[in-house]
């Protein structure tokens, strides 16, 4: 019997749920498989429709959550087994070795500077644009701001052959190569699943040349490039020559509203974030010409339609109703030709631009199916988690006591993810309360 609540996924949705529950006096375990909480939102530059700095509004939440007396944040951790039922779940969590003592590390970054592989490993947090070392801090605002050692790349861990410069550099003696993965069992009364999303890999859309053409990038790469704390310090640069792109085309619905890719659904956010991306490019340099090639503009939220209007009027974004057929590259200049059929005025045209940004679909994250089977909860036809009733019980799953929230249920924006995080927190707290009432041994339940 336990009054604690497990939240799987430390993105903005999971953080919101943890804060709401913590503030209510509930004890929370927040399990995050990455070394930092924050999720996708931590990597974005700005968020629509307010153009707020994403990390500026998220970081305080991340820190509050991490330091909350009622919240235990378990990073580098994954749920491997769940047994029991509402009020009394026994959950096994694999805590992967960080090879750094979280209590000792101050996040100074000396280990990363001294690591012999510094600058040699593509940085996945920066979508492969920057580089990192084998010992590194995921990103500037990481919470906890603690280094991690990549066991697959670290020469000592992978090949048992290294000068161990990181150990020398660490003044706190935080580096611990003896750390091992451990499996801990925790008791919880309810579970919230908020594992978020991943983005569609556009390599399969061969006609757009992603992976073949340097200057075709996807929207998450764009976010890091335009981000002041990203690998280019916020200067938008072409991969081919480091030049600033002056003409940018944003292609909507890549892998979304697309039966072939298995994602026939609308991602509901791309019209907005592409507009935001275009605004940012214009804000940085107002001689940038932005083209958004869309299928339908779906600006449904409050202030969204006005946002698009501002895009057109204040940021000179040209919206073209067309889904391009193909992108070709000029091998000399690495400029791109976007072939499209202007469905409003008719006729096949080809638009020369310096950079193409593919607005890629939101898709279920890898491992979602496995987690669903560990939890025993249902998934839908697209392999998102499935609620028992989308309309009237959108947080509830087929297993009492397990709730779902955020972009692991369907593509959604930050606002919706936060709303759902709060809603799921409420459902979980309610479940424990009801269970406590029903349970004959309610005394002593919870913490």
């Amino acid at each position, binding site marked *: 019997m336990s009054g604690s609540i497990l939240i799987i996924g430390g993105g903005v949705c999971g953080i919101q749920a943890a804060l709401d529950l913590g503030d209510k006096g509930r004890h929370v375990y927040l399990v995050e498989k990455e070394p930092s909480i924050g999720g996708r939102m931590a990597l974005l530059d700005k968020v629509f429709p307010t153009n707020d700095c994403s990390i500026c509004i998220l970081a305080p939440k991340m820190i509050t959550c991490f330091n909350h007396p009622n919240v235990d944040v378990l990073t580098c951790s994954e749920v491997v087994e769940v047994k029991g039922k509402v009020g009394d779940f026994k959950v096994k969590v694999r805590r992967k070795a960080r090879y750094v003592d979280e209590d000792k590390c101050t996040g100074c970054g000396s280990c990363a500077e001294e690591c012999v592989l510094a600058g040699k490993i593509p940085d996945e947090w920066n979508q492969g644009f920057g580089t990192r070392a084998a010992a590194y801090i995921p990103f500037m605002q990481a919470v906890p701001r603690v280094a991690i050692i990549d066991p697959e790349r670290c020469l000592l861990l992978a090949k048992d052959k290294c000068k161990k410069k990181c150990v020398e550099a660490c003044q706190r003696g935080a580096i611990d190569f003896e750390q091992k993965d451990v499996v801990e069992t925790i008791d919880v009364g309810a579970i919230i699943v908020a594992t978020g999303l991943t983005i569609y890999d556009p390599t399969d859309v*061969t*006609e757009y040349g992603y992976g073949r053409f340097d200057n075709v990038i996807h929207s998450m790469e764009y976010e890091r490039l335009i981000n002041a704390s990203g690998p280019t310090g916020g200067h938008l640069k072409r991969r081919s020559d480091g030049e600033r792109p002056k003409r940018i085309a944003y292609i909507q*619905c890549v892998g979304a*509203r*697309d*039966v*072939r890719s298995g994602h*026939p659904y609308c991602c509901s956010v791309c019209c907005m974030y592409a507009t935001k991306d275009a605004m940012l490019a214009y804000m940085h340099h107002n001689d940038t010409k932005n083209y958004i090639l869309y*299928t*339908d503009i779906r600006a449904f939220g409050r202030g969204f339609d006005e946002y698009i209007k501002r895009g057109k009027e204040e940021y000179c974004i040209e919206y073209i*109703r*067309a*889904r*391009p*057929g*193909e992108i*070709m590259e000029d091998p000399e200049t690495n400029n791109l030709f976007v*072939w*499209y*059929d*202007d*469905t409003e005025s*008719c*006729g*096949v045209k080809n638009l020369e631009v310096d950079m193409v940004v593919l607005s890629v679909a939101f898709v279920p994250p890898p491992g979602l199916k496995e987690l669903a089977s560990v939890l025993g909860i249902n998934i839908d036809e697209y392999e998102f988690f499935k609620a028992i009733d989308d309309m009237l019980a959108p947080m509830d799953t087929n297993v009492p006591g397990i709730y779902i929230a955020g972009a692991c249920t369907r593509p959604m924006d930050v606002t919706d993810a936060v709303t759902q995080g709060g809603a799921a927190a409420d459902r979980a707290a309610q479940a424990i309360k009801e269970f406590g009432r029903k349970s004959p041994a309610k005394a002593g339940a919870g913490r």
Partner: protein
Amino acid sequence: MASFEPEIVAFTCNWCAYAGADYAGVSRIQYPANVRIIRVMCSGRVEPSFILKAFEEGADGVLVGGCHEADCHYISGNLKARDRVESTKELLALLGLGPERLRIKWVNANEGEAFASEMDDFVKVLSKLGQNPLKKSRKSAEPAVPGFEQIMKSTDAYLCVECGKCTASCPVARRDEGFSPRATVEESLEKRHTEIETGQQLWECLTCRTCEQRCPYNVRFSDFIRDSRIEARTLGLDGNPTQSGQMYSWMRMMAKDGLKQDRLSWLDGLKVKHKSTAKNDIMFFVGCLPHFDISHRHIGSNSLDIARDSIAILNAIGITPVVLSDERCCGHDLLYSGDARSFKELAKKNARAIRAAEVKKIAVSCPEGYQTLSQAYPSVIKGWDVKVIHISELLAERMEAGKLKFKKDINLKVTYQDPCRLGRYMGVYSEPRKVIEALPGVELVEMEHHGPDAVCCGVSSWISCGATAKSIQLSRLSEARATNADLLVTSCPKCLIHFRCALSGKVPGEKDDFEIAIEDLTSLVANALGVGGDN
């Protein structure tokens, strides 16, 4: 047969032969009344399609009359006519109609006697030969047309969101403003069916499936076009067929009853083994290769090389294939040009012959035959389950089993053209590449557009060959040229014909930007196996 009166169609030139016939008339020279004369300005105007059409419609004999050599009023039209008649005779021989049914005769304006005696003789010969066997062919019922509602349902046209990805991908639409798959589907959604049926756009589509490959909602536009053409044909509408439809004529003739083809004489004297029937064995479907060899001789198609090399390859890997003497055209081109009835007739006749030979597998070298036999036949032939395999797949299979040994070095850098039917229709991309890469000394380099993104050779089903087609062909050839390959390899006899044709005429700019040798995969493989035409 005593009462048999042969019917003769005579195409006579305005200046000599027609005048000669007229002279016979005004001079009251008696000759048989079996001839129907059609006046043309020059015998050079008479295309093989005119002659074949006459036979298709039941003529017992055709005579082409022109000026004597060196007398042609257009310098050399009569010589062209002579060459065409000669090659058309070969086609008639293949079809089993008998080359004797076609004559060419030089008649001067004052040679009424000559015209009359030619007619006397022709009627005698034809009377002996007997009736055109196609005359007796019964006409099967016109198959039910699907109707536009059904077409839209079966091709998922209703799912279209009008995003235009199809049109932006289409090689035709990029060159021809009037053509737009999106606009066509939109018209159908707005129930403007008549506009689709009667519009020229209907015939411009290459059915190459590039649009389908990319359509986010899987609207099957090529099928939409195919079925809409069937609809249009019920209104008597037609596209603009290549060589004014001669190919369709001999294809339709094959769809008729009573034909006793002479399909196998090209095999005489070749050192390849084949047989006529065998239980549970492999058949080689020759298709229209012998006919293309004749109809496209002027551009050096050498289509029969593919057939010969294919059988030689099969022999080299231990297969003595069944080759049928009464095989028919597979029907692909007729189906895709809207003639569903003839397609069905061809399918029935082929199915009967193939089943009678008791083969278990059909090997093809032509992707259109491959696609038709495996994807289109099941819809018209009940219980059709004969396996069909492209020769590249067969070779890749053998290679994987370690049963293919090449003897000769090829030493070439090559690039590969994915035929639409083999690639986007049948999904065969890797096998031809595996085979090419295994050839000794061969390096394969890819063109900018390859695999599912490959560009069509510009013409399909012998419709709409024109400026757009040529532009597509030349840009594709320049892509091939840009790879610095020595050779463009394809595995479709039609790609070969279309590319060689594009290079046979004038090109804009420097020919060097486009010129590249083109060969079929089978020729390359046969050479490497030491069984090619040169051996």
